[in-house]
């Protein structure tokens, strides 16, 4: 009976790898189908950072002074771009929690598909939506008069931003597997605010009181923000310790470290589902 719908022969390693990729694309395709069906949700998600950008530039920006001089708008846009990458953690976590709570993760696990595709499919989909989100936010920045200095470094900056998103994607997957209840996403949605404010995304860390400035400088978000500001040719704000001086190094090290740690934790958590 089964033979009519596919071969049951044990696949070789190449065949397996091919299916792992194909399955991941199908899993990610499910998200694309969601976007098509819920364009409003996609729009809200993409426009929220734009709204923040506009509020900070036009409502708060008048009172902002960038230490070392420079326009607050140019200072803020790179910060907002990095912020949008961190906010992605909520989308990833929500998707993982919902699928696990609804039994969809278990259904995937009971299918003869590549087990890795459950997670790699999520990565593909979330990275794709982040690229779109970044494009929208960059377009908004350009629309209000922000201009990156040169194209080459700007592309490197986009690469660093996506690397940061990758790190927060894995944090999101881990938190999603950890959470038993979709209500826990709320907690993360709240906690992400102090996390992003305790960085140099909105104001230079040097304007904060002593020890807070140090914490803000070492925030995994901060390295990316400073490095991206440099690459876009925006004012970076003066003052700062070792972390600020080596921002580009941290902009690579932090996301790589977080990705490795949370990928390992997530895989272990995923395996624990069979206990």
């Amino acid at each position, binding site marked *: *009976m*089964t033979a*009519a*719908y*596919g071969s*049951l022969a*044990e696949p070789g390693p190449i065949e397996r790898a091919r*299916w792992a990729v*194909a*399955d991941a694309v*199908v*899993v990610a*395709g*499910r998200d694309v*189908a*969601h976007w098509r*069906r*819920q364009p409003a949700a996609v729009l809200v998600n993409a426009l929220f950072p734009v709204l923040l950008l506009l509020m900070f530039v036009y409502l708060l920006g008048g009172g902002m002074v960038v230490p070392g001089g420079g326009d607050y708008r140019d200072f803020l846009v790179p910060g907002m771009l990095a912020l949008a990458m961190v906010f992605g953690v909520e989308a990833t976590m929500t998707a993982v929690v919902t699928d696990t709570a*609804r*039994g*969809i993760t*278990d*259904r*995937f*696990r*009971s*299918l*003869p*598909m590549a087990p890795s*595709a459950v997670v790699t499919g999520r990565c593909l989909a979330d990275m794709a939506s982040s690229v779109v989100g970044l494009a929208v936010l960059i377009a908004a920045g350009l629309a209000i008069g922000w201009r990156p200095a040169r194209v080459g470094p700007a592309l490197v900056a986009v690469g660093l931003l996506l690397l940061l998103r990758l790190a927060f994607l894995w944090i999101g997957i881990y938190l999603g597997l950890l959470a038993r209840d979709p209500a826990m996403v709320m907690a993360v949605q709240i906690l992400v605010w102090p996390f992003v404010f305790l960085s140099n995304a909105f104001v230079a860390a040097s304007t904060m009181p002593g020890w807070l400035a140090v914490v803000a400088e070492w925030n995994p978000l901060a390295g990316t923000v400073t490095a991206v500001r440099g690459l876009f040719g925006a004012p970076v704000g003066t003052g700062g310790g070792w972390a600020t001086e080596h921002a580009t190094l941290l902009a690579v090290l932090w996301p790589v470290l977080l990705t490795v740690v949370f990928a390992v934790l997530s895989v272990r958590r995923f395996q624990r*589902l*069979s*206990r």
Partner: protein
Amino acid sequence: MVSAISIAGLTKKYEKKVVLDGIDLRVRSGTVCALLGPNGAGKTTTVRIMTTLVRPDAGRIEVAGIDVVRDPRAARARIGLIGQQPAVDDVLGARQNLVLFARLQHLGRRAAGARADELLEQVGLAGTGTQPVRQFSGGMRRRLDIAAGLVLAPEVLFLDEPTTGLDPAGRRDVWDAIRALVAGGTTVLLTTQYLEEAERLADDVCVLDGGRLVAQGTPGELTAAIGGDRLELVVTDPGRAREAALLAERAAAAGPARDQAGAGERVVVPVSRRPGVVGAVVRALDEAGIAVDDVVLRATTLDEAYLRITGRNDERTEVPA
């Protein structure tokens, strides 16, 4: 007889708690087996182990002739799982859902579409078009869920409490769908808390309690073991309850109850429904001078069935509301 499921010595512990304590089970090919038991009996764990989602601590588990622990991938290609809650994407439509699951089982684009249409027809959802699953009724959602478990025409289908939370119409829908499957030759293992569901669908019923199989047989055999109906008496003098119970049992010609009668005025006696049984009991009590305030003849409740089979409680003193 060919076994579609064959389990020997299945054991599973969580921390120190023994969830499954040496289960042996065989399900013949092409039959329906109902795993009946209260919450926490270990039904879901058993199903999750048989469907490769959870690893057992000990035991040999073969499904469709495949060792599920040694070769989970091959097992997954031959089984369908329908979990406790409908595991379908509720943003997508019914057809989109089925195409998604078919593609993940490596059907080509065209074959996936064709299979999806076939299944939609089979479960009566062909007319739903692009309507998102979110707008489906509970029964429709469940039928889609069942269809999603049938993509590869599995040899063995597992349903974990398929009708829990459904209204009577939805329940009938699901029962019909399961009957149609069995007519097509699929072996079905379903778990349920409802004796009625087991009676209606299953060829064999296994009662699971506290991680052990405590009874096994056809629905007819089990109902006979549980003992048909109950006669409930309220005696005026609680001091004579034990005496009343013995007299009533004798008069009703029921098998000797294994439980000890306790204190209390309420007496419950297993009886088989036959003409004159109530009269005989009341006469016997009257002759012994035991006054009776109330007499009720009613069907055995599932609670009593569990208690009877597991033999853990004194049925005559603990009457479920």
